[in-house]
């Protein structure tokens, strides 16, 4: 990251290797290669589409989470917020009335923004430690989700499946269907997310997020409305959660107040693997996306290793701890190495 004080004698290769981005891409390449070898028809369109569908939720959630972490927060309520949104979507929609789908979209988006605003008030304006305030709100979302949908279920309108598989929707022209078979909606959702962040990162808010996350007090002292920036980061996170909810409801055709729980921790871990510092202000949202891909590939590899289903939670928990510990240890090691060279 930092280019300061490198001794002139260093070879450029060493400079490259010491960059965290390099190691992230290297790990990604290794995981990609292993998966490509293990999965027999990895490069066929069908399995590529299937992989994108499997990876998209974590990618979207990770990008949202990365934004909040960059702004100096963390969102432990992301998973239950996702669950709540799926419950809202499936409660508003009525089967056979296509127009209710639009109401559902509007309602869910409003709820998503509200979620972001409440988290933002807690983190930004009231300056309660983010970890604990989002822990509290996560139970509000959980309870609200259970209120709407005590047991998994609900109904959706027909066209909502287009967020998962355009081919499953009747009455869509053939050329769009064949387009959807190659470019799945999940990929489009991820691209929308990327485009959204691309636009935001070019604005003042995008740069303020880094400033606030890096040092809240100096950002405040230089005249940035830190609370508003953090609130905006939370709302943007909500947009990503909203996109994920669209995908899930399109895929499962149902809402579930508890389905999102495991994604919270995996998204945080993915962001950390992607080089987002938990202390805030350092990292890159696109590399968080790569981090999500790395974790997804690791999951895939575990799947190919034929580990029984019962081990899934155990293994994913171990991966999260190992991933976080390794990235933090790596950053510390790099820092120390840099200090030594500068001496």
């Amino acid at each position, binding site marked *: 990251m930092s280019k300061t004080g490198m001794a002139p004698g260093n070879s450029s290769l060493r400079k490259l290797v010491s960059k965290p981005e390099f190691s992230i891409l290297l790990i990604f390449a290794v995981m990609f290669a292993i998966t490509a070898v293990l999965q027999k028809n990895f490069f066929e369109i069908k399995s590529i589409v299937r992989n994108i569908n499997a990876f998209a939720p974590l990618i979207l959630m990770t990008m949202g989470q990365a934004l909040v972490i960059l702004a100096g927060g*963390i969102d*432990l309520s992301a998973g239950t917020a996702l669950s709540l949104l799926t419950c809202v979507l499936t409660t508003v929609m009525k089967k056979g009335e296509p127009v209710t789908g639009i109401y559902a979209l509007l309602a869910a988006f409003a709820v998503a923004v509200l979620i972001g605003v409440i988290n933002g008030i*807690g983190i930004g*304006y*009231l*300056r*309660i*430690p983010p*970890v*604990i*305030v989002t*822990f*509290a*709100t*996560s*139970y*509000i*979302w*959980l*309870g*609200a*989700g*259970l*209120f709407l949908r*005590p047991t998994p279920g609900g109904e959706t309108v027909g066209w909502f499946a287009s967020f998962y598989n355009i081919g499953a929707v009747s009455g869509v022209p053939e050329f769009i269907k064949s387009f959807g078979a190659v470019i799945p909606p999940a990929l489009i959702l991820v691209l929308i997310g990327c485009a959204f962040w691309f636009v935001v990162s070019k604005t003042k808010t995008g740069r303020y997020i880094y400033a606030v996350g890096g040092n809240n007090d100096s950002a*405040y002292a230089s005249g940035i409305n830190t609370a508003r920036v953090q609130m905006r980061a939370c709302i943007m996170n909500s947009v990503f959660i909203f996109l994920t909810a669209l995908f899930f409801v399109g895929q499962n055709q149902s809402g579930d107040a508890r389905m999102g729980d*495991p994604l919270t*921790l995996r998204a*945080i*871990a993915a962001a950390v693997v992607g080089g987002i510092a*938990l202390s805030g202000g350092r990292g890159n949202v696109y590399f968080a996306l790569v981090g999500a891909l790395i974790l997804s590939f690791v999951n895939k590899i575990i799947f190919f290793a034929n580990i*029984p*289903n*019962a*081990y*899934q*939670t*155990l*293994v*994913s*928990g*171990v991966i*999260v*701890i190992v991933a*976080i*510990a390794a990235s*933090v*240890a790596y950053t510390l090691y790099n820092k120390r190495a840099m200090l030594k060279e500068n001496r």
Partner: protein
Amino acid sequence: MNTGIGLRNSAIYKAYDRYKKLVIAVLLIIFLFVLGQITVSNFFTFPQVLLTIKLASLIALFGLCQMVVIAAGGSGLDLSVGYAATMTAVFTAKIMDGKNENLWLAIVVAVAIGIGVGTLNGVLTSFFKLPPLVITLAMANILQGVINVYTAGKNITGRPSPVLRVIAAQSTGICPNILFLLAIVGAIVMIVLSKTKLGLMLFGVGSNETAAYLSGVNVKIVRFTAFVFSGVLASLIGLLLIGNMGIAFKDMGSNYVMPSIAAVVVGGVSLNGGEGNYLGVILGAIFLQTLTNLLVALGWGDAGKWVGFGTVLFILLIVYVSNRRGR
């Protein structure tokens, strides 16, 4: 101005300032009981109050785990207590098999599980400086995974030893036995924390890390020990859980995690560390249990309970923790 300072120095004001949060907690509990009496008939009766306190005692014990970890500072919290307890309950059910003579082995297993979990939590958070909430959440996942693996394809067999049944589920006269246990634990905790070097070290590390370090306290070891204590205590509470329920099942402890943290906040313990009044935590636990009872009586069930807990925690965080005036 002068009178103001005089008032501030008076013994009554000092006592009020010190116990302000306890008074608030008591008032909140009374408020809930009155509200319950108005909306639901037979809410504020003596047996009902005793039952509430009995159910709250498990939350209060889990709250002790949280209180110690929180008091040690470093934004510590332990989300793995629920599954540590569940794991002990599930593993010891078969060992005890309904016999008293196997209880010792069960306790040894429980302590071993607690030390294992606590050591991992403590090493990762205090020596590797990883965020406690994320690490303990991941640890909860791992423990849940271990339980899933252990119970995959077979039922959990075995029953608690009769002694545990007596302690956790039965009553002497009208007073549930677990209240005696809670009273003993509470007294020990309060004495240890206020009268011994141990308590001084814990609060010292929590309130000012640098000062504690400069006075020769090993900050890392203290925080590490807090996590080990939390793990062992949570694991032992697992024995009470199975004693209370009579059987062990997969998710029996996970519902206590959120209330245990909320109880600490309701009890007025600062999340910044450096303080801890166990009486407050017990009151907080009673408040949360009363709230649960009220919401269940009103027919709002699980959903209402979680919304209620989340909202109460959120509001109290605003009141106690919010840092608006810092600027």
